[in-house]
């Protein structure tokens, strides 16, 4: 695996002496790639011998410590650009300087100046008020920083990934939120379109993203899908001329400010990761709304919200990449996105370090600056060392991505992991150096302390980064191979609703009367008799029917709607947990849920209940669940037999009327009403039977001994695959559903 290492990471000496590889690429520099491409022993010796000289050369940079901008090595004097170094054919010792170019440093200086003049003065206000720096972000665009690593033909800056990382770093140095706005926009919102979009999509979406006219965002995370994307529950159904998108996304950076969203939805839920597709979704489309802006601990100037899709019509041409390839797109995007987060962590650490350094010089105790105290100075030494190490990792990862180094995801994960881990250490020490002053709002280190925390969490927690790195290091040892029918069931089985098998019939007609009539007719067909009823205060566990109110019921006077409906349905009254516990509309013993009362009767009518897990588990035994909610993406609709998408104020009176408001006869002894069958998942492909022995190839199971992973279709088996039992060739198999007559 020869990795082409062009540019300034390559040693000229090595370029010349390296044996030609089959691809003619230069051999990688030993210190960067110790494990993948061991250099010849002689080279290694030379590398080691040259190290001190190189370090000396580097050490010269911080010597200018008293220069006005006292920063670490990116500080003036400007490092020797690599182009110059490479021209000095005779001075081989300069060939290994790990340095940025003049152009990089020029960009750094521009971004830094902008950040310090436009963002630093308002950073505290943004943080305090949870406010998005709209004007500043416009400034990113006018400076040409919204499309740094993208081609000029799409209005990008045509610069490299490292330039982008430097921009994020410099913004984050002043404000972590300001940095992540650019990072999420560039590597999450824009990258998938630049990399996987077709020409038309690039013209339409990439250009305004690169100019900064639009802001981009990326929607992958859901309630049940984060690091494990296979839990994606947002669906996109092919409706011929458009896709119908339903579901919701959480923790989406840049929402609702962003204009363009790359959203991942399941187009074939039974296929897990292989059934996920990517879509470009525009703000403002019918049915696409946002949840509340989260009240975050840090990076409060960046906007973060929930995306809600309720029957959003996505035009056919907005499918990004191929159908079913969304998981690959998401993973490729995150690989690169991690470099942005790493740069953000680096910038936050750098900013906090500089503040601590200044404070250590200024703060006088016992008649001298506290920096003279070894307890403080050693801290600063450690902080500087960590930052320098992190910077090398981040810039190296950016270079790898820029040069399309295969599997650069390892370097990106290492950079993100290390930079964010040390960012937490650095901000902690920086705050400690500030003593009590650092604990007060308004101090930059206090904000940096909170801002840093997210960097070990988002775009893959650092635990996940370690999984990624380990998988590169160990190869596909992975987990013990799960085979057999149980594993296949787990992989390909249907996603069982938390409430067990349900009919999942959702009525979403514009005419609510039609929806209500359909539901009441279905209930009567199921055997419900609405001429009888039970008292409204029947204990939940004993009740045959319950009408329950959730937060969606709104004001307390709306409980009248619930009381009327309960009377008409012949039901007792229940509620979700918040309605009893927080709103106190009903006594605590009326709330239904795993932690509250369990409902074991027949009919459960959930009004304005979104369907928290613990609530759903408490109604598992219900024979029939009816849901009324305004949000079509609410979990309750994936757990009910009949659902009406609509406002309780409109739907409940109609339902009440349809059930009938006459006095109810006392109900007799409860008779449990039957539950529906759980439909079995459709096979992912044909099961093929060997004509040499009768062995069955089941695609859900694969063939572990031949290293055929579960989920491999028979048609995808290699042509030299043979029957594991009798070695019959692949063409001598017959479909198990073959009918001869």
């Amino acid at each position, binding site marked *: 695996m020869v990795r082409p290492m062009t540019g300034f990471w390559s040693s000229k000496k090595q370029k010349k002496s390296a044996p030609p590889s089959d691809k003619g690429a230069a051999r990688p520099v030993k210190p960067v790639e110790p494990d993948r491409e061991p250099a010849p022993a002689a080279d290694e010796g030379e590398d080691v011998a040259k190290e001190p000289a190189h370090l000396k050369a580097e050490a010269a940079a911080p010597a200018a410590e008293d220069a006005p901008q006292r920063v670490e090595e990116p500080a003036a004097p400007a490092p020797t650009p690599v182009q110059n170094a490479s021209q000095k054919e005779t001075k081989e010792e300069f060939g290994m300087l790990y340095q940025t170019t003049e152009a990089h440093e020029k960009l750094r200086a521009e971004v830094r100046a902008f950040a310090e003049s436009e963002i630093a003065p308002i950073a505290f206000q943004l943080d305090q008020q949870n406010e998005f720096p709209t004007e500043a972000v416009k400034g990113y665009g006018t400076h040409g920083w919204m499309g740094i690593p993208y081609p000029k033909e799409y209005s990008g800056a045509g610069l490299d990934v490292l330039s982008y990382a430097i921009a994020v770093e410099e913004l984050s140095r002043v404000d972590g939120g300001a940095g992540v706005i650019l990072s999420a926009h560039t590597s999450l919102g824009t990258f998938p379109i630049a990399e996987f979009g077709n020409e038309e999509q690039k013209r339409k979406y990439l250009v305004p993203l690169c100019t900064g006219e639009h802001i981009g965002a990326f929607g992958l995370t859901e309630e049940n899908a984060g690091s494990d994307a296979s839990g994606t529950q947002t669906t996109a159904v092919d409706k011929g001329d458009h896709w119908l998108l339903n579901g919701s996304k959480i923790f989406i950076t840049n929402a609702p400010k962003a204009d363009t969203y790359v959203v991942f939805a399941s187009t074939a839920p039974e296929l897990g990761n292989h059934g996920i597709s990517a879509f470009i979704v525009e703000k403002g489309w019918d049915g696409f709304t946002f949840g509340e802006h989260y009240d975050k601990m840090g990076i409060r100037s960046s906007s973060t919200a929930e995306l809600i899709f309720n029957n959003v019509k996505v035009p056919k041409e907005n499918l990004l990449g191929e159908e079913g390839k969304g998981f690959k797109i998401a993973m490729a995007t995150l690989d690169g996105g991690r470099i942005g987060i790493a740069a953000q962590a680096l910038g936050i650490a750098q900013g906090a370090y500089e503040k601590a350094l200044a404070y250590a010089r200024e703060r006088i105790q016992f008649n001298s600056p506290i920096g003279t105290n070894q307890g403080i100075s050693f801290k600063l030494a450690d902080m500087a060392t960590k930052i320098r190490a992190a910077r090398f990792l981040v810039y190296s990862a950016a270079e790898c991505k820029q040069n399309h180094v295969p599997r650069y995801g390892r370097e990106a994960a290492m950079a993100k992991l290390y930079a964010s881990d040390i960012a937490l250490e650095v901000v902690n020490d920086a705050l400690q150096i500030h003593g009590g002053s650092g604990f007060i709002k308004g101090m930059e280190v206090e904000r940096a302390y909170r801002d840093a925390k997210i960097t070990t969490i988002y775009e893959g927690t650092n635990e996940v980064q370690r999984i990624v790195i380990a998988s590169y290091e160990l190869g596909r040892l992975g987990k013990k191979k799960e085979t057999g*029918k149980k594993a296949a069931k787990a992989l390909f089985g249907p996603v069982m609703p938390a409430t067990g098998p349900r009919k999942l019939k959702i009525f979403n007609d514009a005419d609510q009367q039609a929806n209500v009539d359909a539901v009441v007719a279905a209930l009567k067909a199921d055997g419900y008799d609405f001429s009888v009823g039970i008292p409204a205060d029947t204990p939940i566990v004993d009740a045959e029917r319950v009408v329950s109110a959730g937060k969606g019921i709104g004001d307390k006077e709306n409980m009248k709607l619930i009381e009327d409906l309960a009377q008409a349905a012949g039901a007792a009254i229940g509620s979700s947990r918040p309605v009893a516990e927080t709103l106190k509309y009903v006594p605590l013993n009326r709330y239904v849920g795993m932690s509250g009362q369990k409902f074991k009767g027949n009919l459960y009518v959930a009004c304005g209940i979104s369907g928290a897990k613990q609530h759903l588990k408490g109604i598992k035994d219900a024979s029939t669940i009816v849901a009324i909610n305004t949000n079509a993406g609410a979990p309750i609709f994936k757990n009910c037999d009949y659902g009406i998408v609509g406002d309780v104020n409109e739907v409940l009176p109609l339902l009440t009327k349809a059930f009938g408001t006459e006095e109810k006869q006392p109900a007799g002894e409860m008779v449990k009403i039957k539950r529906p069958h759980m439909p079995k998942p459709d096979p992912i492909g044909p099961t093929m039977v060997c*004509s040499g022995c009768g062995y069955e190839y089941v695609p859900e199971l694969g063939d572990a001994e031949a290293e055929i992973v579960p989920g491999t279709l028979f048609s995808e088996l290699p042509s030299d695959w043979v029957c594991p039992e009798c070695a019959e060739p692949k063409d001598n198999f017959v479909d198990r559903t073959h*009918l001869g007559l």
Partner: protein
Amino acid sequence: MYCVRNVTDDIYWIGANDHRTHLFENIHPIPQGVSYNCYVLLDEKTAMFDTIEWGQGRQMMSNLEHVLDGRDLDYLVVNHLEPDHAASTGLILSRYPNVKVISSEKCFMLMHQFGFDVDAHEQIQVKEGDTFSFGKHTVTFVEAPMVHWPEVMVTFDLTEGVLFSADAFGGFIANDGKLWSTDVDWKANNLDEIRRYHCNIVGKYGPHVQLLLGKAATILDKIKIVCPLHGLIYHADDDLMTYIDKLNHWSSYTPEEKGVLIAYASMYGNTESAAQALASAICEKGFTNVKVCDISETHVSYLIADVFKYSHLVLASPTYNLNIYPVMENFLNEMRMLNMQNRHVAIIENGSWAITSGDLMQEFLEDEMKDMTVMNERISIASSLSGDKKRDVDDMAQAIIDSMEEVTCDPAKRFEKKQH
């Protein structure tokens, strides 16, 4: 004494009837015996089609010698090498040193494995579509893999339209002189044993039987007579389509009829009582195609045959050492091994302190078998069915009757997507 019958002017049945073997394949009881069929063609050359089980070899030899009447045997065609047909191959090879052997590649391989001295003879290896002439009669060979062994082929006499079909179209019950299906009322008297033979021997290989039926369909108008290796032979214009229809059902795992097999295991009669109560409840509601079997008393090959026949199955089992009652577990396992699929199953479970058999049976049906619909209604018995469970029994009976609507007995609709 020889014992032969003419099939056509040139073709003779020279097989044997076996009543001394009690267990076919040493597993399946055959109270009415079984016949081993083999055939000889007298043409410019003489040719024998398969041989028979070793124990009846003497009868076959005396039949063969009688028919050959002094002529040498020129060819032996081996369609299937299972020893109930091929065990006497060695006898033929040694008795007729000039005989040339015609068979498939895999068949020759198996001949070596079984130890027949075939290398001393000329071997003519044939494959799908090859033809061979014995003079007036020309035959063609059709591969029939996994019906029910991999080497199997069937031989079709193009001249007289005679299909030597190997184990396809076979059945239990010794012929005892009656050779043609028209010699008996086979649908009334032989069908159950034909089903039991086919489902237990070939049942697992439905797709391959379908493959063969597909091939047969292309020459159906040319087939005049079907000569299997067991049981009766069939005229094409007589009962053949009835048999093909049965084969089509069995090999597509489509029930022959809407009906219920209640298979119960009972240690002390309590589970039996529930099974009987259910049978009565179903019949009481007017649906009477119900069969009740005590599986401890019924050989599993009979149960398998009935499962292939009926659309519904009720499994009633006690919990035994926290497991499924062993006889029931064996029945489930036999069904799995024979690829039984596409049935509605209702479960009755019994237990006195920890009832586990129902969940375990359901898990087996859902995870180990294909296309089985386990009904939601389950009767759970704590030791004995008390009167207050009558409602459960009635509910299950009604659910079984109601679900008859979901069942198709048309093999063509077998793999249509079901609406839930």
